[in-house]
Structure formats: structure tokens, C-alpha cells
């Protein structure tokens, strides 16, 4: 292989992100002295269209045989400049990206002189590496135009419909026995005034019309092998104990429910009520047939005596699915306050916002809690969010709006309600600010507290009092008698998150699923073909969740629709002359990508290109150093190291 002798080098200011700390002109001057560098330029934004076009022009006019771009992390613009090279007719693997922003100017903003020296070394190492770079051709593997969507909440259902419209086959897998997730628990929603149930019914009725969507309820993924394009997924479907052809007669169902002797806290109503082992959360819930909760059913057989459609002999079923991509859409859990946190579970009229929303649904013309008519409601904001000392530093985004909207709904639905909001500053962003104004016009009282002085909830014998040092009135101490104290709880990741382990999907600092980049690659994870959307990746309201689910759907579809996926050509290759067939590499490869073949009368190892993932686990175990990884050859790695050590 010949070394490159016409190399173009581009050093980016990144506005001032790099050039505030790194003397980019000095870097350019130093690297321009290197023998094979024919062009060296600094640029304000290497990623700008005009600069990209300039690089294309440089490559074509000067017949460059390699380029180095020194700018931000390759996580952001590796593909941008690969495309630039391709547009200019240069093989994209004859380009090297050097990170002088995250790993230089920002990391060493305290030492600009040393940062400049480091940048020079880094760019020199890129030039050394690209000198040995080889033009590589991507391999292609077949991909199933099938997408598994996990979670049939509002965003999962929306993803499924979008994917089906785009022509992918969709398996929609819901862990619960009914679809709808959290949204089915909510009443009226802003801005449409449609209820959560109505939204879910609308989506479900649309979804069942598609022939290319299969919905499994009571189902969980229990294992996954394979990779992008060809995931092998096993799904366990728990029995519903109801025969599939059951036509529900509401009166008969009620008799069966009444006959069930089991009573358990009803999680759908956040334990405000109880339910039986055979249940349906509400009449218009989908799928239409009820379910028997296997964890609590005692198999007493009382229900079977009343209804022929019940079959307690049903067993778990297992289904294997081959899919090209997976979208995780598993949503969130509401934060559960600790016992004693603002009086929770110690003072009887302290509840959470999700409980209040269910309470509104469960009540008729008057708002009653524990047999008492409610008039004064105190809302304490940011419980379990924006915690100064706790684990959840993040803002849960939806709760301010949701609380204010709920306060408005309560005021409109019930008589003589007084709302008192104890907040840390209201974040009803965008048009949602209109709600804040409406609540203020309704006469709601807003009081504000600092982190160090949170409100105190106490019981004084006659009732419950919330005390606050109100910063809006110069720290005046105010006490409010409340019939109901509502803790405005934020979003936390799902407590049962086994799916993260099964799919090896990355979890971020906030313990939600982590995207590659919140702006540039917002629904992709580092695991190719595993996408995330909705509130499982961080707090979102319904509209934001649905937008991200549509984004994930189009990303998943674009990945698998061609029926083949281009794989990175950076895979292992074997020097058959050096190989002595000791089988160490075979043992090291987790993908069974190495086989024994005959070559020139001896046994040697050979890489199965479609199976090799380019991890490189076979490289260090070869006693003869007969294996190299394309893009990371000994020549490239050692040239880089030499340049960095210089």
C-alpha cells in the first residue's frame, strides 16, 4: 500500500468554541510543514454547507488522496465529512476526523497554550493515520422490513401506525393486558379537551384496521439475539384466562367481577381504590375482553362457574420474531414520594397529582376525598424533580402545565374550589403559558419557595396546614389551611426496566434511556437498530412524546425498508501467510465469524465478512499477529501513536 501524498487538512474554529482556547492558525502553520500535506486551511464552521462545498472543490481540483478534518467529536460529524469525501469522489475511509473540541479546547479551556500544543499533536496524528488509510467498500446484509415497537402507550401506538403507513410490518408489544399506557389514566387533555381514553380509543380503532400490525398484550420480550437488520426476539405472552372469541356482555361481566373473592389495590387508580383479580379498568378499554391477573388470581373457579368464556387452564405462549429494528417506547413511572415527604402517607389528605387526576375521574358532582368535601387545595410543586440534593436533578417538564390545567378543570367542574400553588417558579413553556394566565385570572394563588426553604405540611388537629416563606412577598410566612394537599410528582424511569438489559440499551445519568445526541441523533442509541422514543428517554408531554415516536418510526423505517443494510467495512482480516491456525481467534470471537479453511496446503483462519462486527476481540489473542482490523491496522495505530509521542 502506498502512503498518501496529497492530503488536505481543515481546522475548524467552531465559531469560537475551538478558537477561543486553541490557536487554530498556529495549528495550521505547524501541520502545513508536513511533507504530504498539500492543502491546509482554517475554517469558521467546517460543517457549514459552503465549507463542505469548498472541501469538495479542493479534493477535485487538487486531486487530494486523503483529508483530515479537525473539529468536533466524530460522534457529531463523522458522517457529514464522509459524505463530503464521497461527493468529491474520494473514498470516505480516506478521511480522518480529529476531535479538537470536546477532547481539547473544551477539556483544556483552563490552559490555552497547552491546548494548542495538544491540538497540533492530535492533528499530526490524524495526518499520520490517514497516510496509511485504505479505501474500503461497505458490505451489505439483508434486513427484515419488520419493526418491533415495545409499549402500546400513546407514542408506541402512534409509532406503529406511522411505520405501518410507511410499509413496515409492525409487532406492537404491550406488557399490560390493555393498551394506552399512562394516557388512558388521564381525563381531559389540553389543548383538545379530548380525554385520554378518547385519544387511546381513536388510536386503537385506527390501529386494528392495519393488516401489517400485530398487537400482543400481556406480552414481554424475554430474549434478544442478533443485530440490526436481523434481531431474533422471543416474546412471552401471559395468559389472559379468557377465550379469544369472548363477546363481552357488560352485565354478565359485572356478575363475574362481583363473584371474584380477590381484592387488590388498583394500580390504575394509583391505589385509591381496589379491584378484583378479573378486571377491566374502564368500559371502553381495549382490547375489549377483560383479563384475569395471574399474580393475584387464586384459581378458586368462582368465575368459571358463571362464564364459559373463562379458561383458567391457559398457559404462557412463546413467539419468535425476526425484526430489522426495535423501538423502545416504554414510558415512565410517576415519582413515588417517600413516606413522610411533605407528609405523604403520614397525613391522610396528602396525595399525588396522578392520584388527584384519578380522583376527579372517580368523583361525580362534588370533589370528595375520604368522605370529606374538598374546597381548599394546595399543590406543592417539584416533588421528586429539580432536586437540589436528591437524585433527580432534572425538570419533569409536564408537571407545571398538568397541575395548572388540572386546577382549572377542578375549578370548572366543582363548586367553591380555592387553588393554592406552592411552586419553585412556573415552567408552562410556549403556548402553555396561556393556561397559567387563565389560572391566575381564575383567582388561583401562586406562592413561591426557595430550595432551602421548602413548604412544610403539618396537621394541627383541625386539619392540614401548608406553611411557606413566600419569596414573592419578601419571605413573608404564610399558612394555608388545605382540605387536600397535592404533591406534584415528576417522571422517573420505569421501575421494572428489564428490557434495558435484554437489548443492552444504554442508560443515561438521569437513569432514562440515552440517545446518541439530543439534537443530532435524538432517537438512536449506540446499539444499531435499537431506537428510543417517548418518555422512556426523559420527561416529555404527550405532544413531545408523539413527535419523538414519529421520528423513531421514520428512522426505523429508513433503516430497514431497503431490505438491506450497509455495514461498516471496518472488519477484521487475516494474513494467511502468517496464520498458523491455533484457533485462539475462533475462541475470542463472540459472533462465530471465524472459520478454518485450507490455503496453500495449510489450515488457516478466515473471516466471514457478514458476521464480523469489527469489535476486534480477535486481534490481541493472535500469537502470530496475523489479524488486523480495517481502519485500525498496526500501521495506522502505530503511526498515530508515534505522531502523538513526538
Amino acid at each position: 500500500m502506498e502512503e498518501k501524498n496529497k492530503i488536505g487538512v481543515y481546522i475548524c474554529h467552531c465559531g469560537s468554541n475551538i478558537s477561543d482556547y486553541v490557536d487554530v492558525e498556529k495549528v495550521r502553520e505547524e501541520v502545513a510543514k508536513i511533507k504530504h500535506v498539500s492543502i491546509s486551511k482554517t475554517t469558521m464552521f467546517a460543517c457549514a454547507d459552503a465549507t463542505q462545498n469548498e472541501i469538495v472543490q479542493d479534493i477535485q481540483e487538487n486531486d487530494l488522496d486523503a483529508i483530515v478534518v479537525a473539529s468536533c467529536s466524530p460522534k457529531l460529524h463523522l458522517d457529514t465529512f464522509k459524505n463530503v469525501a464521497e461527493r468529491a469522489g474520494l473514498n470516505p475511509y480516506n478521511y480522518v476526523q480529529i476531535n479538537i473540541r470536546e477532547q481539547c479546547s473544551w477539556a483544556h479551556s483552563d490552559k490555552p497554550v497547552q491546548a494548542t500544543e495538544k491540538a497540533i499533536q492530535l492533528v499530526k496524528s490524524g495526518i499520520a493515520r490517514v497516510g496509511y488509510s485504505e479505501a474500503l467498500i461497505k458490505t451489505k446484509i439483508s434486513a427484515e422490513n419488520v419493526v418491533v415497537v415495545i409499549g402500546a402507550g400513546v407514542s408506541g401506538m402512534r409509532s406503529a401506525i406511522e411505520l405501518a403507513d410507511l410499509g413496515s410490518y409492525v409487532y406492537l408489544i404491550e406488557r399490560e393486558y390493555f393498551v394506552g399506557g399512562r394516557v388512558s389514566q388521564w381525563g381531559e387533555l389540553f389543548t383538545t379537551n379530548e380525554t385520554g381514553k378518547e385519544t387511546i380509543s381513536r388510536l386503537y380503532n385506527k390501529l386494528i384496521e392495519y393488516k401489517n400490525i400485530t398487537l400482543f398484550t400481556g406480552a414481554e420480550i424475554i430474549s434478544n439475539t442478533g443485530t440490526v437488520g436481523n434481531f431474533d426476539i422471543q416474546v412471552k405472552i401471559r395468559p389472559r384466562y379468557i377465550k379469544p372469541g369472548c363477546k363481552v356482555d357488560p352485565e354478565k361481566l359485572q356478575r363475574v367481577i362481583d363473584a371474584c373473592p380477590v381484592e387488590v389495590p388498583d394500580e390504575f387508580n394509583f391505589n385509591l381504590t381496589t379491584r378484583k383479580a378479573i378486571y377491566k379498568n374502564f368500559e371502553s378499554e381495549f382490547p375489549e375482553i377483560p383479563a384475569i391477573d395471574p399474580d393475584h388470581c387464586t384459581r378458586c373457579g368462582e368465575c368459571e362457574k358463571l362464564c364459559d368464556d373463562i379458561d383458567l387452564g391457559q398457559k404462557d405462549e412463546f413467539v419468535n420474531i425476526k425484526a430489522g429494528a426495535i423501538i423502545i417506547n416504554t414510558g415512565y413511572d410517576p415519582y413515588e414520594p417517600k413516606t413522610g415527604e411533605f407528609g405523604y402517607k403520614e397525613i391522610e389528605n396528602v396525595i399525588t397529582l396522578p392520584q388527584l387526576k384519578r380522583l376527579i375521574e372517580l368523583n361525580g358532582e362534588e370533589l370528595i376525598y375520604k368522605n370529606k368535601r374538598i374546597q381548599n387545595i394546595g399543590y406543592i410543586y417539584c416533588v421528586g424533580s429539580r432536586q437540589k440534593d436528591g437524585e433527580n436533578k432534572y425538570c419533569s417538564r409536564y408537571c407545571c402545565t398538568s397541575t395548572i390545567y388540572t386546577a382549572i378543570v377542578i375549578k370548572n367542574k366543582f363548586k367553591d374550589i380555592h387553588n393554592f400553588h406552592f411552586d419553585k417558579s412556573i415552567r408552562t413553556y410556549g403556548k402553555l403559558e396561556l393556561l397559567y394566565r387563565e389560572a391566575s385570572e381564575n383567582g388561583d394563588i401562586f406562592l413561591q419557595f426557595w430550595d432551602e426553604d421548602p413548604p412544610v405540611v403539618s396537621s394541627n388537629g383541625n386539619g392540614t396546614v401548608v406553611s411557606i416563606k413566600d419569596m414573592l412577598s419578601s419571605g413573608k410566612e404564610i399558612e394555608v389551611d388545605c382540605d387536600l394537599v397535592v404533591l406534584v410528582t415528576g417522571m422517573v424511569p420505569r421501575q421494572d426496566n428489564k428490557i434495558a438489559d435484554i437489548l443492552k440499551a444504554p442508560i443515561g445519568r438521569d437513569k432514562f434511556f440515552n440517545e446518541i445526541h439530543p439534537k443530532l441523533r435524538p432517537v438512536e442509541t449506540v446499539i444499531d437498530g435499537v431506537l428510543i422514543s417517548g418518555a422512556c428517554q426523559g420527561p416529555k408531554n404527550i405532544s413531545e412524546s408523539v413527535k419523538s415516536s414519529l421520528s423513531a418510526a421514520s428512522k426505523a423505517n429508513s433503516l430497514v425498508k431497503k431490505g438491506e443494510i450497509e455495514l461498516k467495512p471496518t472488519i477484521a482480516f487475516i494474513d494467511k501467510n502468517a496464520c498458523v491456525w491455533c484457533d485462539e481467534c475462533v475462541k475470542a470471537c463472540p459472533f462465530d465469524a471465524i472459520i478454518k479453511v485450507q490455503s496453500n496446503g495449510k489450515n488457516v483462519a478466515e473471516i466471514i465478512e457478514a458476521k464480523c462486527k469489527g469489535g476486534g476481540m480477535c486481534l490481541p489473542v493472535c500469537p502470530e499477529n496475523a489479524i488486523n482490523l480495517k481502519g485500525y491496522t498496526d500501521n495506522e495505530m502505530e503511526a498515530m501513536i508515534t505522531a502523538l509521542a513526538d
Partner: protein
Amino acid sequence: MANRTPKILVFSTEKISDPAIDLAGLLKLHYPPIVYTVEVPCSSAVKSKWILHAFDQGFDGVFIAADGTDCSYDESCTEKTAQIISQTHALMKEQGIAPEKLKMAAICSVCAESFVKQMNGFADQLSEQ
């Protein structure tokens, strides 16, 4: 050694530890500028040959920012990377290079603070030698 700042070479991994090192920069968590990173797909792909080459070229320390249990290739990654360390330690011993000049720690994709702590500690340790 006392007159010279030690130079550290870090092998970081494309999907796991490199994002953490990027994050350290994003959060402006400072570590010594003599830390140079080269990317590899997986920490169990680092050849002893490359590590020895780094020492030969004048690096004072080599750090493998390992995938650990987060490795997207295989769960055997931790064990395999540890194997690379022990086999390289043996080779370093043969060449009279102190084994403590080669270190490894698992750096998860958001372990920016841990990375910075490792680098500051390693640089101090090498300066004292």
C-alpha cells in the same frame, strides 16, 4: 522525569468511553492536557504491540478506558481486556518497564467525572515516579 511532564496515552472505545471523555470536555471538567486519546472499537481489541510501541515512543503511561460490562460487542469484554493487561504486563516486565505504567478502568458512556479523576490520579502517580 522530574523536569518533564508525563505523557499519557488513552485507548478509548468508540461507543462507551469516548462519549464519556467527550462529556468531560462538554462539562469543562479539566484534566491534564498531556492526555492523548486514540479510539478503538472495543477495549478488548487493543494489541500489546501498540501499548509497547507507545512506551517505546516515549509515553510514560498507557490507560485503557475499558467498556466493562457496558460493552455492546460481548459480555466477555471485561475478562478479555483484563487478559490483555496481564499479558502486556508480562511483556513490560521483560523490557524493564514498571507495570504500574499501564492501567485500566471501566469508563461508562457518562462516566466523565470518573475519567477525569483517573487521569488526574494517573498523571500525579507518573510525576512522582
